[in-house]
């Protein structure tokens, strides 16, 4: 039994469709750079979270093989338990044969009941994967299916138009130079940040700046006058405008999209990646950022 800590911040919202098995069974999955396993619900899962999502049926796949291994992934808001099987996984036009993946047999708690995706496909480094499981991306590389050992992500503000690009970089999604940053921990695609202007100093200069410490209501009409938050990474400034780090929520009010974390840690999630096209370069263990 291998355990992979994983936690979600309620704001997951970008997902794509993959298929597993022969004939293919389709699933919506979140592509998660903070984990390295693939799992989807299975028909052997009686949990409400499974019953309200697409479930993989091994008996309907001629290429499925069971392994007898079990898998347990713990979340801050719940957990999934399941078994490990092997089958053909199709990601866009890429056919990944004999891919080990998790089939959940229990998804306790409420979290997965309400999410719109079925499972998670991890794009982190192999050391985060459950013992003995080679991540999907590594298998694509090992099977020589990719032109380059990297993937890149463009996130749109719209419902459609976002893209994960496996094996390359699409110059139509960014302008200006790509700044490359060495990965400081090969697991979660961790990079070191020099500092964050504004959040570290605040607008008042006294105490913890409220805007960057929690999700806060802000006056929608004052957003154009609010300052950029500038992240400085490897000596390069990455400004994020107030328009990018705020959002209008139901009811017409506006909120800033920062959220508290433990320790000196920023998670540069959808807010940042919508502004900066992001390249995850496994060949050189570096992250590339360019103006989206």
């Amino acid at each position, binding site marked *: 039994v291998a355990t992979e*800590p*994983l*936690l*979600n*911040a*309620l*704001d*997951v*919202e*970008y*997902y*794509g*469709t*993959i298929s597993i098995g022969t004939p293919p069974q389709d699933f*919506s999955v979140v592509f998660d750079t*903070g984990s390295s396993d693939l799992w989807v619900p299975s028909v052997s899962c009686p949990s409400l979270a499974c019953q309200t999502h697409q479930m993989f049926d091994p008996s309907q796949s001629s290429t499925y093989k069971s392994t007898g291994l079990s898998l347990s992934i713990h979340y*801050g*808001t*719940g957990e999934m338990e399941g078994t490990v099987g092997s089958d053909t996984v199709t*990601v*866009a036009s*890429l056919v990944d044969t004999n891919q080990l993946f998790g089939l959940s047999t229990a998804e306790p*708690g*409420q*979290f997965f009941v*309400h*999410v*719109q*995706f079925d499972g998670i496909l991890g794009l982190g480094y192999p050391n985060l994967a459950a013992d003995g499981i080679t991540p999907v991306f590594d298998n694509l590389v090992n099977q020589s*299916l*990719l*032109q380059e050992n990297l993937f890149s992500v463009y*996130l749109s*503000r*719209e*419902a*459609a*138009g*976002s*893209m*994960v*690009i*496996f*094996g*390359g970089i*699409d110059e139509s999604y960014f302008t200006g130079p790509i700044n490359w940053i060495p990965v400081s*921990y090969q*697991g*979660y695609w*961790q990079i070191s940040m020099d500092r964050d202007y504004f959040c570290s100093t605040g607008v008042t200069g006294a105490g913890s700046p409220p805007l960057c410490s929690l999700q806060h209501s802000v006056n929608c009409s004052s957003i154009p006058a609010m300052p950029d938050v500038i992240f400085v990474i490897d000596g390069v400034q990455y400004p994020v405008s107030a328009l990018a780090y705020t959002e209008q*929520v*139901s009811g017409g009010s506006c909120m800033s999209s920062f*959220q*508290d*974390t*433990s*320790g*000196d*840690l920023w*998670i540069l999630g959808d807010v940042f990646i919508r502004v900066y096209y992001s390249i995850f370069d496994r060949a050189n263990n570096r992250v590339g950022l360019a103006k989206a």
Partner: protein
Amino acid sequence: GVTRLPLERGKKLREVLREKDLLQQFFQQHHYDIGAKFPHAFPNGTG
């Protein structure tokens, strides 16, 4: 060698729970810290 997979932007779970009037209940039952996912973040204690 280069393959594109389109992503769909769905509604945030935070919004879904708020619309169902379940957000407050969710936070009461589940404490979460998004940084807790990263136990190896600073292996040498050097932030």
